[in-house]
């Protein structure tokens, strides 16, 4: 898969618009999903997605092939999302405090069988941006922690720490909702 993407990148660097279209078709959905998960605004995400692929077009010749194409493009999307959030002035969302916390595996397992989507969506939104991004890349995109570190431009250890905390907060949030009986 990545060799296909790298081939397309070479063509794009040479000015091949059809190759750009092919790469867009291959990666548009996951990149868009990632941006929406960060910005929570589909319209703004449309524009950022557009900007990301414009950047791909403009800078394809600077792609050195040391990382996966997907990782490189997610890195662009990550940085552009940060720019948007900075403009909004909402870089650091505070974590929701849970007064009925139960992160026992039983509660979590019960939740997994329930109204998963709503709960997961809600709890993801309560995470800080860094935590949410790490979990999103791990679970939506199935990235390794090394790839996530590359996207975010931080050391691998930082990603492990973020994932550790994100997972803990996510499970607590989900368990709390089960305990409270949130529909």
């Amino acid at each position, binding site marked *: 898969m990545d060799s296909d993407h790298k081939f397309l990148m070479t063509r794009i660097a040479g*000015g091949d*618009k059809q190759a*750009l*279209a092919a790469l*867009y*078709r291959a990666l*548009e*959905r996951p990149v*868009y*999903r990632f941006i*929406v998960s960060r910005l929570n605004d*589909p319209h703004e995400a*449309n524009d950022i*997605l*557009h900007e990301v*692929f*414009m950047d791909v*077009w*403009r800078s394809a010749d600077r792609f050195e092939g040391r990382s996966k194409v997907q990782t490189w493009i997610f890195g662009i999307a990550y940085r552009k999302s940060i720019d948007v959030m900075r403009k909004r002035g909402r870089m650091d969302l505070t974590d929701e405090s849970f007064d009925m916390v139960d992160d026992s*595996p*039983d509660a*979590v*397992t019960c*939740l*997994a*069988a329930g109204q*998963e*989507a709503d709960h*997961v*969506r809600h709890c*993801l939104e309560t995470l800080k941006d860094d935590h949410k991004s790490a*979990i*999103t890349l*791990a*679970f*939506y995109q*199935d*990235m*390794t*922690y090394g790839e996530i570190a590359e996207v975010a431009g931080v050391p691998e250890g930082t990603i*492990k*720490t973020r*994932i*550790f905390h994100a*997972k*803990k907060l*996510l*499970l607590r949030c*989900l368990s709390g909702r089960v305990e409270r009986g949130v529909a």
Partner: protein
Amino acid sequence: MMTRDDLNALLPFHANGTLEGAELAAVDAALQTDADLRAELAALQAIRATMQSEEMQSPGDLGLARLLRDVEAESAIVPAPVAANDNVVPIARLRIWQIAAAVVLAVGLGLNMLPDAGRAPEMESAMSEDAAPAAEQGFALASGGSADFTVIFAPDATEAAIRALLLEAGVEITGGPSALGLYGLGLLESGRDDAARSILAASEIIDDLQ
């Protein structure tokens, strides 16, 4: 030897199937003996499955069309030669062209005012003859006459669209562009102030009208 926190941090990557080598072996070994860890892994796998199953409407073909349109526009660094009857020129080029015309005219006028500046008599004559038609062609107007209106054209306005609008409104360019992109427009003899203003105000290629 991994701590429990280390194992916990790696668990999401076991859930997404990207863990390998010694780390995978260590987590697998811990899972065999730790029921809580197994339950947590099951929960993470369920969360991942839930996230991945969510449908999301992406821009799709519309987004691709927008992308290719903008790429096409950006790729046109060297514009194709304009055919004799093709007057569709973006406003950015129009401005450059007008500035260039104004510079050429100014140089021409300046040379004409310099007596015998190392110039052969036949050249002086040629310059005088060149300058007069240039003024008649409207270049002198762009250097700044009195204006009934001041406008800013939309960045993507074409010369053809501007010309059509000016004709419809009964106005001509009398000055500009300024550094801010302002153009002065003057009424032609046949033009009427109120009618011209309403036509200009209703036009999509006018960004600002004073």
